[in-house]
């Protein structure tokens, strides 16, 4: 047998990617006043227009949205509370009666990007985080 291909082991937990970030994360909304740490994520050009990207900060996955059409930036937890999936950064963004929102790719649960509120059901709300843009770089605010 060609040795170049690795046989799947019986224990898939051995998968390299499983070794980091094991514990379940607690997201908590951070208001602008509470921010004491601005985390530098990436340059503006790295973000898609009118779409999201996922950043990791100390194991915490944050969805950051470049709403270029409105010239606004938003950040929320990347976890969709409906089925606990790390996915929201890949959701389509848009507006509902002018309220900016993101829709989860799995079951189209939509959340306000401003307040994190679930707009079409009874899901838990999202935690939201402040975003600032300085000299071409995007920062997300945390409280330590």
């Amino acid at each position, binding site marked *: 047998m060609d040795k170049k*291909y690795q046989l*799947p082991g019986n224990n898939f*937990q051995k*998968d390299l990617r499983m070794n980091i970030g094991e514990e379940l994360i607690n997201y908590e909304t951070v208001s602008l006043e509470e921010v004491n740490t601005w985390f530098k994520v990436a340059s503006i050009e790295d973000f898609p227009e009118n779409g999201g990207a996922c*950043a990791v900060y100390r194991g915490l996955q944050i969805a950051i949205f470049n709403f270029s059409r409105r010239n606004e930036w938003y950040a929320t937890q990347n976890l969709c509370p409906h089925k*606990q*999936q790390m996915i929201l950064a890949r959701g389509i963004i848009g*507006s*509902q009666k002018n309220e900016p929102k993101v*829709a989860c790719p799995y079951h189209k649960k939509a959340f306000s990007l401003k307040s994190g509120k679930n707009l079409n059901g009874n899901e838990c709300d999202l935690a939201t985080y402040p975003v600032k843009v300085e000299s071409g770089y995007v920062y997300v605010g945390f409280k330590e």
Partner: protein
Amino acid sequence: MKKVVVVGNGMVGYKFCEKLRSKASSDKIELVVFGEEPIPAYDRVHLSEYFSERSSEKLSMAPKNWYMENDVTLHTGELVTSIDRENKKVITHHGHEELYDKLVLATGSSALVPPITGVDKAGVFVYRTIEDLDNIISYGKNVKSAAVLGGGLLGLEAGKALMDMGLETHIIEFAPKLMPRQLDDHGSATLRQTLESLGLQIHLNKNTKEIRGNGKLERLAFNDGGNLEVDMLVISCGIVPRDEMATTCGLNTGPRGGVIVDNQLLTNDPDIYAIGEVALYNNMIYGLVAPGYDMADVVVNQLADGGKKEFKGCDMSTKLKLIGVDVGSFGDALGETPEAKTIVFEDEQQGIYKRINLSADGKRLLGGILVGDASQYNMLWQIMDNELALPPAPEELILASRGDAGSDALGPLPDSAQVCSCENITKGDIVNAIKEGNLENVGQVKSCTKAGTGCGACSPMVADILNDTLKSMGKVVRKVLCEHFDYTRQELYDLIKIKNIKSYEDLLNTYGSGDGCEICKPAVASLMASIWNDLVTKQDTIQDTNDRYLANIQKGGSYSVVPRVPGGEITPDKLIVLGEVAKKYNLYSKITGGQRIDLFGAALEDLPKIWEELIDAGFESGHAYGKALRTVKSCVGSTWCRFGLHDSVSFAVEVENRYRGLRAPHKLKGAVSGCRRECAEAQSKDFGIIATELGWNLYVCGNGGANPQHAQLLAGDIDSETCIKYLDRFLIYYIRTAEPLNRTATWLNKMEGGLNHLKSVVIDDTLGICDELESDMQYMVDTYKCEWKEVVNDPKLRSKFSHFINSETGDPTQKFEEIRGQKIPAAW
């Protein structure tokens, strides 16, 4: 507090509970119900649907927890055997005793079984309960032919069900005509002709003398000396009221059965009521559901409100679809009123017969019969019921075609006019509910008012009232895309094409408002892909995640990969490559329904690497992630198969390669079968091609899924070139005109004129657009490129396949478990 016991949990028994609870809560009236069947009340009117749906839940009037939530004590599977009137209690077959203050008999009826010799033989059934149906279905699996005894409403329904089971089906009627109670000779003859043309064999004037056979039914012998060889018999000759325990406790019953009631539905015991098919009012048993509901209403009014409502008899009008044939009969259908005048319209070619009976002075409508086209039923019934003045030329009432006459005739309808006779809902009730509740579709109207939830006959009229009311409120009824685009999909198609718009932002700025959403973005993305065939990942953030990453997202956030395998034909070398790639990237492997191989569990950042290897081996994208052409499945065809007429694999490969990458309002599936044995299941696809001696038969607009539908024949015995030509035209016409996310079957179902219209457009070119349709398709074929090849060769596009923007690693939260030696995502 009063205690009411209801004996019988059928449609009327249930409706009584529902109506009572809407008036009186459990602190006022305690409610106990006994039903002898094992499941709670179900809809017997639509019993024949059980044959296709096989789900008693769909027929259920209300689930078991409805009874709990509404404080109704329901005992199912428990038969009340006697009533002790002196001590005011009922006794069940379990010996269970229940005291009552008021007793309501809603025991209904059983099937009338005539005393024919041999009626106890195996293979003889009645048609009444779900249990009967289960028995019929299981016996029917092993036989070839069946007969129904009785050519009335129920008998014909049963006949349809048997025909749907694939049995040779006979209807045997004692009278010289079908539906003798509802139809006249002419109407009955018209119905008979149509039913016979559909394959039902009808025998009139037949008095069945004996059911013969050795242990089981083998043939029927008639009084006229004739015989009919048949494997199964379903008896549907009428009903017998279930009044046995009423008789034994001394309640007055009629000479032919039924508990005698007065106009308050009271029996000769002032504490016992009878409602529904067990009640004999004015020497009449009402074998329809609407009068039963009326009776329930009258009793509820007395018990809950202390009211004095009276039952005044009921109209026996009826409208139904029998085996696809509309039949309506209303009021004085047979023109028995003295000096009634009759107007008749008959079209033998189309199997249509209509008759209306007018009063002697020609001013009032007394009743009528509609066979083959009952679209004017509601309008006529309303004119009769509301005693509206007839137009000067009343014949136009039955000549006018539906649509123009329907709505106009409803205009003058008074608000007091009853629209839904099952639930007793008036036009005013519906109009008010629409205005106050801001209702916008028929579903909302139904759940809000209950109109149309009984027999359903008034549904078209409810829709008309909704449209008229919305119009009167100044609301435009148009299927616009969403709040951001005040255009239908078809209008946007034209705008994008004519105005040469290539990006979503341009379209939104020019013709939309707001910032878009998850509905309009993918819909516009699909339109632009269908029109310009540009690489979808160029506008990646308007795509649904599958199209954004050119793979199918699965539980846990990993993706699956499906390379194209045209026609399902694959070389061993290519199979080995798939196996090797699957091993290398640790992918769960499964064969799909479309004859391809699906590799699951790929991390987002691995997708470009996986595809690089697949493309090197000669694979292309399979577009399993897109609302696009998926597969053209094939059987092995004439190259190998001894039955094959033509080379179905070669044709499937040709067709799949022609339409690969074609984006559409929804996914598209095709198949090619090499003979009429149809191993490729082509008739369940959006387009299906089946070999004939002379060429190919082309079927269109079928699908599997939640609502399976067979494809219909668009053209027969055509050569390969013609087949491709028709397919080109059909597909582009669908792409141009369908609503978002409508598959071809739904599109055709909504199309005015249906298959005939489709044929006239794509075959006869009545719209004069066929050249355009063909050149549009040729453009798509000429500009096809493999999306994954484009991405793999473009470092900028490749860089988008990463979970984190600030880290090279994949998503560390993805977890997998194992099943049968392969990985699966952890359950969510």
